């Protein structure tokens, strides 16, 4: 079977090219490097499992998940309008003479419907932020309490096991 395959000119050409590649890899040291890399493969998993790397990975994955949750149509429309408005308002001329806002002009600005809408967004955001932090702190407190109870039980079990081991050892 092998002899038959080797008679095929296409197989001969493929073999010649492979051998030629191997010779070049041997000359350049790439083959020796691959040999070492193959030897390292079984160990690579445990090196990659460094808890610090995994935590970075988990946090990055969460950030990407947040990005994934944003609807592309919504973000595209909102961001493009925001950029348009910024371009229109923040011109170099306007930047030279930035309006100063004191207490009186701040109160006047509050009459502007656009400012009112912007404030509405900020207030809404602050409300969401406050509610989320309140809920998360409650959840974390409950989690810490539950964990402490579990750990206390585990410490008791560990102490019992150590006491038993010491008794046998003596």
């Amino acid at each position, binding site marked *: 079977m092998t002899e038959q395959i080797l008679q095929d000119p296409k197989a001969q050409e493929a073999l010649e090219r492979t051998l030629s590649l191997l010779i070049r890899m041997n000359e350049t040291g790439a083959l020796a490097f691959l040999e070492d890399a193959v030897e390292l493969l079984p160990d690579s998993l445990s090196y990659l499992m460094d*808890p610090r790397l995994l*935590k970075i*990975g988990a946090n990055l*994955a969460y950030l990407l998940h947040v990005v994934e949750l944003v609807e592309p149509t919504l973000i595209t429309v909102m961001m493009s309008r925001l950029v348009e408005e910024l371009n229109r308002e923040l011109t170099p001329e306007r930047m030279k003479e930035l309006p100063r806002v004191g207490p009186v002009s701040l109160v006047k600005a509050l009459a502007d419907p656009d400012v009112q809408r912007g404030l509405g967004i900020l207030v809404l955001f602050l409300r969401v932020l406050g509610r989320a932090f309140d809920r998360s702190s409650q959840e974390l407190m409950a989690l810490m309490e539950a964990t402490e109870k579990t750990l206390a039980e585990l410490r008791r079990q560990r102490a019992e096991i150590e006491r*038993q081991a010491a008794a*046998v050892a003596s």
Partner: protein
Amino acid sequence: MARIMILGGGSGGLVVANKLARGLRGTSHEILLVDRSPYHYFMPSFPWVALGFKEPEQVRRPLKNLEKKGVRVLQGEVREIRIPEKRVRVNGEDLSYDLLVVSLGAEVKPDLMPGFEAAYHPWTIEGALRMREAIQRFEGGRIVIGVSGPYYRCPPAPYEIAGQLDFALRARRLRDKSEIVLAHPHPQPLSAMGPAISGVITEILAAKGVRFEGNFHARAIDPERRLLLGQDGREIPFDLLIMVPPHRPSVAGMCPGLLTPASFPLVDPKTFRCLADPDVFAIGDMVNPAINLPAAGVVAHFQAEFVANQILAELKGAYIGESFTPVAMCIMDFGDDAVLPMCDFTRILDLSGPPSCGVLGRSKAIRLTKMLFESIWFATYLS
């Protein structure tokens, strides 16, 4: 010349054997691995066998392949470990060792739960094939996935099975006339792994219409009335019951007088050396619950690396170079979705705080990673 004997050809035993074979190449030390089965099975794929996605021969490789690497393989049943004499009884024969690694895992004991004959499970290859037939016969109704106790191999597996069943029933157009219930001792799905992972799994189960019955401690099965009975009096009716069987550590007479009340070997949690004799190491599912680590192949893997390094250091005066990494990760395949959770158990191991857990990814692509990992595993350790 030392004889290093490894009991068990699962994840832990296989990694120890490979690492020692590489590290002791060219020396006269002998490595002997004993297992009752001629095969190493990739257990994370057992649910795939049960769902018909894989065949048994695809998820196993002969342990004899290790002999090409210089590891002697003996097929036999470990009957007794006589630590004071440094001997192990295998198939009626006494074998001596200088250093021993015990990685016998956990055994399924269906008989410990009354009425278990009415249930199916993929925790053995034979069980997975039986479960496949039951699923093929299923024409709609209520599938209940139950858990017999908190100690079982691969804690996330029941959730994966629920997700895969949902997918399979949709494909067979049986989902509309079926209900899937997952009854588990935990209050929330995978709550032991913290709110980040639990939240994602809860979301996936809800999206798939899987009802989660938490705080359910199964007591028995009533085959006549087809009920799963809880310790608190709850009764869950089923048409098809998939039940995680009771598990027990495979101690095989190990460390007499040095077992925990729950029959786990007593080991030093920093070195995994048996307290009865420091020349004996015990790793994996047979020991981990006693040191508050999960019964998972990945934990056994990292323990095996660490134990092999300690042995190499002892025999060669070698530089160990790394410590035990108490992390676990598991690719959870839900059929049309997949999640890669990870947990760092450093704080649990020294009892200073909760594990640090997060989700490394959620995507259908992760399912591919599981398939690739199986290939890499076999290619690396049993080619």
